[in-house]
């Protein structure tokens, strides 16, 4: 793992006994001695601290917020102009075919937009914005770490360092001082739990992480549990559940496209693939991302082929994420099926080690979201 980038918390991960793995060019902790299952449950019951410094932090600046938002709306089909100051929103870059180039979080910081993009896509995203946006500057923030503190105890833990953390609502963004560090904090995350994402200067990241870990309710949590948490939360992982072959409607992400960008809206269209995406928003798509509950205990993972009937020759789709859901206590999965098979309660079949085993189309998320609205 000598060619891998290290995050500012690398030394701390090793001290904590993390098992490090390569991920998107970085050496990242997949688990700590507690193990994936317990780290997952700890996050759902207390609080987990995640190092997500591999993700891209990007500042996009222009003449004013409206100029930046208007420019970004040419690449992203969500309402960025109407995003309130110090509020955050989910979005994605689309391509001419209506597929998804990457998903991201966008925050209105008054005179600029602060974006968080996927690690594997960050170089491409930044080049893409630079090539396609005029009148704005796009700057990767490489000198800050990104921590996520997630779980029902997150508010109490962070409030102990700065009481202002408690008054934030879901998707609020503020600058707060934590353990002497000037942090950019959002009340959001990717686990389905209440919590915060904290951008902290690299030099102060380890001290802040140690301060948070000193709280009895906080345990370090690796990428393994991050994956099972987001899967239970019904959240898409780019490159797996969404990619350039999936459109927002197919991916069941219609909720992310506000009315103002849809047909009949004041700023309808004007983004790559608008013809496809607007038509699907109105008419539906031929296939849809759904939750799937395998019967029995055998997990069905990414790539498992799905069939409408137990003895059908042709698959109707495949699983894009799957595994064991520690909080659900059973195997869970997500995948794409034709709209005809996408109704909750439909039984379909997955081929596992040569056997066709039943799965039921299920409501997403698998565990109820626990956000502070």
């Amino acid at each position, binding site marked *: 793992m000598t060619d891998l980038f290290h995050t500012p918390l690398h030394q701390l991960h090793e001290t904590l006994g993390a098992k490090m793995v390569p991920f998107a060019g970085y050496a990242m902790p997949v688990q700590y001695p507690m193990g994936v299952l317990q780290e997952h449950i700890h996050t759902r019951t207390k609080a987990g601290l995640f190092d997500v410094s591999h993700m891209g932090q990007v500042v996009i600046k222009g003449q004013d917020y409206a100029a930046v938002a208007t420019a970004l709306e040419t690449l992203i089909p969500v309402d960025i102009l109407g995003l309130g100051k110090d509020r955050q929103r989910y979005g994605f870059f689309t391509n001419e075919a209506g597929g998804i180039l990457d998903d991201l979080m966008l925050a209105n910081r008054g005179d600029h937009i602060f974006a968080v993009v996927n690690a594997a896509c960050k170089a491409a995203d930044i080049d893409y914005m630079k090539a396609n946006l005029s009148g704005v500057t796009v700057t990767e923030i490489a000198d800050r770490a990104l921590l996520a503190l997630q779980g029902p105890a997150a508010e109490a833990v962070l409030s102990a360092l700065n009481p202002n953390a408690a008054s934030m609502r879901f998707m609020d963004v503020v600058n707060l001082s934590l353990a002497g560090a000037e942090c950019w904090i959002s009340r959001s995350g990717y686990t389905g739990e209440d919590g915060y994402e904290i951008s902290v200067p690299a030099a102060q990241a380890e001290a802040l992480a140690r301060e948070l870990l000193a709280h009895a309710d906080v345990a370090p949590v690796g990428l393994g549990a991050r994956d099972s948490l987001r899967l239970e939360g019904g959240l898409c992982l780019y490159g797996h559940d969404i990619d350039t072959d999936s459109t927002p409607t197919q991916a069941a992400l219609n909720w992310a496209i506000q009315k103002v960008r849809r047909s009949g809206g004041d700023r309808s269209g004007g983004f790559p693939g608008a013809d496809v995406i607007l038509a699907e928003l109105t008419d539906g798509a031929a296939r849809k991302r759904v939750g799937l509950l395998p019967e029995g*205990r055998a997990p069905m993972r990414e790539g498992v082929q799905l069939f409408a009937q137990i003895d059908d020759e042709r698959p109707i789709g495949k699983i894009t994420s799957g595994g064991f859901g520690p909080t659900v206590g059973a195997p869970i999965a997500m995948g794409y099926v034709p709209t005809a098979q996408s109704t909750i309660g439909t039984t379909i079949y997955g081929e596992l080690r040569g056997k066709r085993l039943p799965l039921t189309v299920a409501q997403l998320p698998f565990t109820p979201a626990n956000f502070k609205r």
Partner: protein
Amino acid sequence: MKFTEEHEWLRREDDVVVVGITEHATTQLGDIVFVELPEVGTTVTKDEEVVVIESVKAASDIMSPIDGEIVEVNTALADTPALANDDAIGAGWFFKIKPSDPSQMDEYMDEAAYNAFIA
């Protein structure tokens, strides 16, 4: 007790051999969430896949270390797969096999050799 390079352990119990995987293996695999066992009465040959283990991370196959007939499987693992993590060389055993050629056991490591192997 004998050990394979695939991290299985074999323990003679009268005329049958009990087979499981070592604590070293279960630690590497992580939390085990599913174990698929062979059917009792199946005749298996050495290196044939007989057990599938799913951990939170991935699926792994366990091969039969010797030729023989499966005479008993640990049905407790179906409901409590974590037994394999919690008590790898005891309650977490996988299957009992009646060897057709007990001398196949001889090629495997004893405990000291295995401990040196994983060190």
